[in-house]
């Protein structure tokens, strides 16, 4: 963009000067002859060269090279005129000058301007050919820069003798300015791609210009000295010339050193800033993506910064947390302060990494257990605390689950060890009784009842083991869902249970549509139906004339509801909480059982994502199993 601007500057200035030449304002020429120090030819070349630079930067390379070639040829011809002192009749090709400024033949551009045009346009052609910037282009443009800058400085230092002060400065100020602009544009456009830093190039150019000026000044000094030898008399220890020279060289050296030093230190600080921003970015990347919350607070507990994880943990946007007191997030944060204070009192460096637990509060007011580790940061003027917060409610929930599961497991192992040994102990006792009876000479009819007791004991044991196996299967088994006809399953199960005590006594009413099907895990569903029906049959009331069982199934808002009601013994009031627990029995005298049935029922229902509820009736019980909506396939 800035390169484009320099091209336009050249075009505008060139056009303005051409317009002046064409307008021929005699009064202006007398009042400000310097305006006409730039020849019409020069102005034209600036317009063409500026256009060439602009086209180059706009990537219209062919057109750019054509224009640059024309300008270079024209300027080269002018240069040849100067060098070989010939007249190619091109000086007044376009216009007959109405004034003459300077020492050149009318209409002929200055030799240094011609040289600069050749260099600049050569640089443009080269770039056009290569399609990119190059070192040679930079060097060519830098030469033009040196010439034009020294001319400009010449004007600044010695305005009155501008065009005669130095041979190379024989260039009008506007010409020098245009060359300065064009060369700057060509030097700095795309320079980073060559591996240079713009400040380095600028510093080098400045230094080179300064040395050029020094040299020119020295040459001038020598020339002047020849003319005015008497006025710079030699002293005992040397002469003014050598003193002046020494001062010049010294100042030049100091200036060069200063430039180098300034440049080096700026480079260093730039690198450090780069490293700092890099490490900051790295740290920010870690903190911003961390799952844990990072909070920095000052001594009063005011929050200075939070990371994005805090937003997720506490539910506040970052802006609502910063500058608030930490108590907003941790109501009992004082505990932490005391903790830190005691740590300071005891001379312990506020135990970095030590984690303590406290309660966090979310935006919606809900609280959660959190782990907090605090580190003290001692800065020059204040003390900060950096805290890492972790929401541990999930971990706590798991802990609770594990403890619950463990307690259940312990209960299970206690009960099984008891219930497994119980029938075996009975059998052992009965066996020794049988042996005793045989020794006493007892006959088969007397032994028979004892033997059947042994048989009963083993059946009890077998039943328990079967149930334990079922329970293990309920926990471990993973089976696919299949389509189950509900009414059919219920009828089939009842048929199987007919052989049970009371199985034939109970009248069963089934209220299930024949077409009703569910898509569930078949074996779990079977366990549920089995348990509900066998319980209803087992715990019928013997005093009841007609033991009745009602089985109903329906679909309520997509959920499957199966209920089994009976007019049986029911559950003694107050025992409901224990109903679905392991090894709870309520009618042990009435029917044998392991105390695992309803526990297995609950586990199976929960495995299918549903719930089971018990409701007391005036007479008997209702068990209701609700399974959630079926998954869409």
């Amino acid at each position, binding site marked *: 963009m800035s390169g484009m601007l320099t091209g336009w500057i050249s075009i505008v200035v060139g056009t303005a000067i051409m317009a002046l030449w064409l307008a021929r304002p005699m009064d202006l020429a007398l009042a400000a002859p310097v305006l006409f120090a730039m020849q019409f030819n020069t102005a034209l070349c600036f317009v063409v060269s500026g256009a060439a630079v602009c086209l180059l930067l706009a990537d219209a390379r062919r057109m750019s090279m054509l224009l640059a070639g024309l300008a270079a040829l024209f300027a080269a011809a002018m240069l040849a005129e100067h060098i070989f002192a010939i007249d190619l009749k091109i000086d007044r090709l376009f216009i007959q000058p109405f004034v003459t400024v300077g020492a050149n033949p009318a209409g002929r551009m200055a030799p240094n301007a011609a040289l600069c045009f050749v260099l600049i346009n050569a640089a443009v052609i080269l770039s056009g050919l290569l399609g990119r910037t190059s070192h040679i282009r930079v060097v060519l443009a830098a030469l033009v820069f040196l010439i034009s800058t020294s001319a400009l400085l010449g004007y600044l230092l010695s305005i009155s003798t501008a065009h005669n002060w130095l041979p190379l400065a024989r260039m009008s100020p506007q010409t020098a300015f245009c060359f300065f602009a064009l060369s700057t544009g060509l030097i700095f456009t795309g320079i980073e791609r060559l591996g240079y830093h713009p400040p380095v190039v600028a510093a080098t150019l400045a230094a080179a210009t300064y040395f050029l000026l020094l040299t020119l000044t020295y040459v001038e000094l020598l020339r002047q000295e020849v003319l005015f030898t008497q006025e710079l008399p030699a002293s005992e220890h040397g002469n003014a010339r050598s003193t002046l020279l020494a001062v010049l060289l010294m100042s030049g050296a100091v200036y060069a050193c200063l430039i180098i030093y300034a440049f080096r230190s700026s480079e260093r600080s730039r690198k450090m800033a780069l490293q700092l921003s890099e490490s900051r970015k790295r740290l920010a990347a870690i903190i911003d993506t961390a799952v844990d919350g990072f909070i920095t607070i000052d001594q009063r507990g005011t929050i200075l910064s939070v990371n994005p994880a805090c937003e997720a943990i506490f539910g506040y946007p970052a802006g609502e947390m910063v500058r608030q007191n930490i108590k907003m997030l941790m109501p009992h944060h004082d505990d932490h302060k005391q903790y830190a204070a005691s740590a300071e009192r005891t001379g312990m460096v506020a135990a970095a990494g030590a984690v303590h637990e406290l309660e966090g509060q979310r935006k919606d007011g809900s609280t959660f257990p959190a782990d907090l580790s605090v580190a003290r940061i001692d800065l020059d003027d204040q003390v900060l605390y950096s805290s890492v917060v972790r929401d541990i409610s999930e971990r706590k929930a798991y802990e609770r689950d594990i403890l619950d599961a463990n307690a259940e497991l312990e209960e299970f192992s206690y009960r099984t060890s*008891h219930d497994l040994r*119980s029938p075996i102990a009975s059998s052992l006792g009965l066996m020794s009784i049988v042996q005793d009876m045989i020794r006493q000479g007892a006959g088969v009819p007397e032994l028979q009842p004892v033997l059947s007791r042994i048989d009963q004991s083993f059946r009890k044991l077998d039943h328990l083991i079967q149930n334990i196996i079922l329970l293990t299967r309920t926990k471990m088994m993973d089976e696919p869902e299949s389509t189950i006809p509900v009414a059919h399953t219920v009828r089939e199960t009842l048929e199987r249970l007919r052989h049970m005590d009371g199985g034939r006594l109970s009248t069963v009413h089934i209220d299930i549509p024949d077409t009703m099907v569910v898509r569930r895990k078949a074996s779990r569903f079977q366990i549920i139906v089995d348990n509900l029906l066998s319980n209803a049959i087992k715990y019928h009331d013997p005093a009841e004339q007609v033991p009745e069982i009602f089985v109903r199934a329906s679909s309520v808002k997509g959920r499957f509801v199966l209920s089994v009601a009976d007019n049986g013994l029911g559950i003694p009031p107050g025992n409901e909480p224990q109903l679905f627990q392991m090894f709870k029995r309520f009618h042990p005298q009435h029917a044998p059982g392991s105390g695992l049935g309803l526990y297995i029922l609950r586990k199976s229902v929960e495995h299918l994502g549903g719930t089971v509820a018990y409701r007391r009736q005036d007479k008997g019980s209702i068990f209701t199993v609700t399974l959630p909506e079926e998954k869409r396939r």
Partner: protein
Amino acid sequence: MHSILTVDDDENDQFICTYTIRRFDPDIKVLKAMNGLEALNLLRGTTPDAVILDINMPVMNGFEFLEHYKKEFDTHAPVVAMLTSSHHAADRERALRYDFVKSYFEKPLTPENLRVMSVLLGKEKHRT
């Protein structure tokens, strides 16, 4: 010993107790209760020479029975606890914490158990 109360929910265990006691001494009168609650009701009417108590029972288990027996009664018949398995130290200690619980046996009840029991209770009588 003239009378023993056996408290057990399991019919087979009751049968074993009765048979073993008969064989030990046919003169001993055996009283039966199916759970702690029944036992308490029975004890309100009579105080046997000894109680053989099962710990794992529905309705009111052995421990609950002991607690009620301690609080609601002034005179206590000596009690012997029957444990299904003596491996559960907690159960054992919990039962022996009551001063009227004299000992514990592991199921099933044997004539040897009864001999130990009569010696134990005989000593007890001498002491009082």
